[in-house]
């Protein structure tokens, strides 16, 4: 079975190959790329394509590797012991399963998304080496080993905030989602809004690439921003003509807030637009 993109997700040739290699050789796939280029979406779509359940583990700065395996809830047990509850005698009652455990004990192959692994502590990936390699871990409290019934397809995303350790990288396959070219963007838009007017799209792309090229932007708008912006444009009934007209006058694009998320960037664009207008006269 091969991943070939879905009707709601445009996958480039190299991305498909990376996914298929990772699936076939049962290795985790590490995906990096600019924010908004569809890293998290990939996992959802792979799940959709393989018709498998998606288990998502969102990583935060405080997440510990152990939490993905299981947590021993000592506080509940303490309280139960003081209430003389029957439950207290079995330690299993206080073991809360983590996402990895959930993925390992699933009855069929699942997709496990470890989202934004770089948010966690620098040691986090190292703590998962064995678990990802062997797909098993040991529970000290109950003295049992949890082994994956079906090796899950693991997709890991990173925003490059921290460098990942070599030992971890060596266990993964890697794909970097480059910012899509114009044709690919066009396809992506078509997939999202099948009935959209082509004139609007091409005019919007014009403006979009113009903004991306503005020097010194703190955060360049990416695919997800473009998709949101188009949705707004359509909702407000702004036509290609209006966009073009605005563009010619170099007045700042309508509904810009969907594309640029930072007030310094908005000011920068306004300044550029102002200078552009001066140049026109």
């Amino acid at each position, binding site marked *: 079975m*091969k991943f*070939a993109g879905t009707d709601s997700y445009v996958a480039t*040739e*190299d991305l498909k*190959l*990376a996914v*298929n*290699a*990772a699936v*076939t*050789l049962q*290795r985790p796939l*590490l995906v*990096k790329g600019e924010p908004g280029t569809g890293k998290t979406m990939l996992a959802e779509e792979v799940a959709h394509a393989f018709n498998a359940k998606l288990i998502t583990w969102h990583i935060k700065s405080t997440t510990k590797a152990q939490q993905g395996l299981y947590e021993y809830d*000592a*506080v509940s*047990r*303490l309280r139960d*012991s*003081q209430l003389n509850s029957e439950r207290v005698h079995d330690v299993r009652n206080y073991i809360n399963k983590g996402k990895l455990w959930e993925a390992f004990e699933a009855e069929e192959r699942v997709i496990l998304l470890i989202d934004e692994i770089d948010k966690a502590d620098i040691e986090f990936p190292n703590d998962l080496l064995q678990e990802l390699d062997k797909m098993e871990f040991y529970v000290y409290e109950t003295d049992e080993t949890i082994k994956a019934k079906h090796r899950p397809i693991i997709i890991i995303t990173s925003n*490059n*905030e*921290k*460098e990942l350790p*070599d030992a971890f*990288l*060596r266990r*993964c*396959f*890697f*794909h*970097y989602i*480059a910012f899509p070219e114009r044709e690919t963007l066009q396809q992506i838009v078509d997939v999202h809004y099948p009935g959209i007017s082509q004139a609007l799209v091409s005019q919007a792309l014009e403006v979009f690439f113009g903004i991306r090229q503005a020097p010194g932007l703190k955060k360049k708008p990416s695919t997800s921003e473009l998709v949101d912006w188009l949705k707004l444009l359509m909702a407000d009934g702004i036509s290609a003509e209006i966009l073009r007209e605005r563009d010619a006058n170099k007045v700042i694009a309508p509904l810009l807030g969907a594309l640029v998320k930072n007030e310094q960037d908005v000011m920068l664009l306004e300044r550029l637009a102002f200078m552009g207008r001066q140049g026109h006269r």
Partner: protein
Amino acid sequence: MSAWPLWVGRVTAKGIAMLLNLFGELRAARVPVSLRELLDLLAALEQNIVFADMDEFYYLARAILVKDERHYDKFDRAFAAYFEGLENLNEHIEALIPEEWLRQEFLRSLSAEEREQIKTLGGLDKLIETFKQRLEEQQKRHSGGSKWIGTGGTSPFGSGGYNPEGIRVGDAGERQGRAVKVWDKREFKDLDDQVELGTRNIKMALRRLRQFARTGAADELDLPSTIKQTARDGGLLNIQMRPERRNTVKLLVLFDIGGSMDAHIQVCEELFSACKAEFKHLEYYYFHNYVYESLWKNNARRYQESTPTHEVLNTYGQDYKVIFVGDAAMAPYEVTHIGGSVEHWNKEAGYVWMQRFLDKFDKLVWLNPYPKQHWQYTQSTQIIRQQLENQMYPMTLEGIEQAMRYLAT
């Protein structure tokens, strides 16, 4: 590795030798690849993930061998070098796909209809014979056309083709013809860490300097271990305390300002201030060309508001990490001679002042925005480097990383 016997009989010895060539090119191009990745690639080829398509082989090799987008460009160049080195592409494909495997794969993937079609072409043996013959004729990668094996053509061979009588090799699917080899496009040039820095990159590199430590008095309640200890003690309250966690790094940054340095300085300055929150202490001063008896904080008011260097040396403790940022390109006497400064009469030579910095602070580096290979042509750069015992780093991502690593230890 236990997987070894599984594939060793399948990809031919010649194929392995060719992969080793690629591996060698990659090592030579300083792409960090290890044996493990090579074995993975072989395993992937065994699994029939790609079939007789050079672009796909390239993508596959990249996904498996490269683990960071910084190395994509190096990989592309190494791949191009490897590709040039091949006498022809077919040798490569053929070496990777042994004949019997090819035949087996063909038979398995064929439908009854297709088997019929093969007969019209003169049987499978004939087909493979033609396939090989064309591989021999074909000297380059090919796309489109009606005869050669490749992608998007109408020949009976290749993938994405349109010949209804033909045999599809490998994966189906609509694809555009690619005139330029993917690796020759070098789309990832910007991500190479040997090239100039971008804003974000410096920030990333500076993060290396973060050192968290719990030092000082234990005045913070450690809730998790209190609970843990209390639970372990069977409900007897057992309070645990710990010191607060702080970033302990203190930085003193000195920028060369004026002349050729201005363009570079602005970038660094913004960045260092952007990172200010990261560090417990970050102090900066300016100097011109080299350090003498005074430094200043506000370049516009440098003559009114300068700070004696002695004061700076006495204010900051020896645990401050010192970073000089400058091009280190000047007349040699600006470093070595009394009165050598281009701006004023200095009573003591620049190197005396630098030595005071070296004596006072444990860790000191110099970041130089000029490319490293040019340093040897400037005498002053050589002198300064010598005085700093080689702790001069280029302002590339790699250089900053190395510098930070040195500072962090």
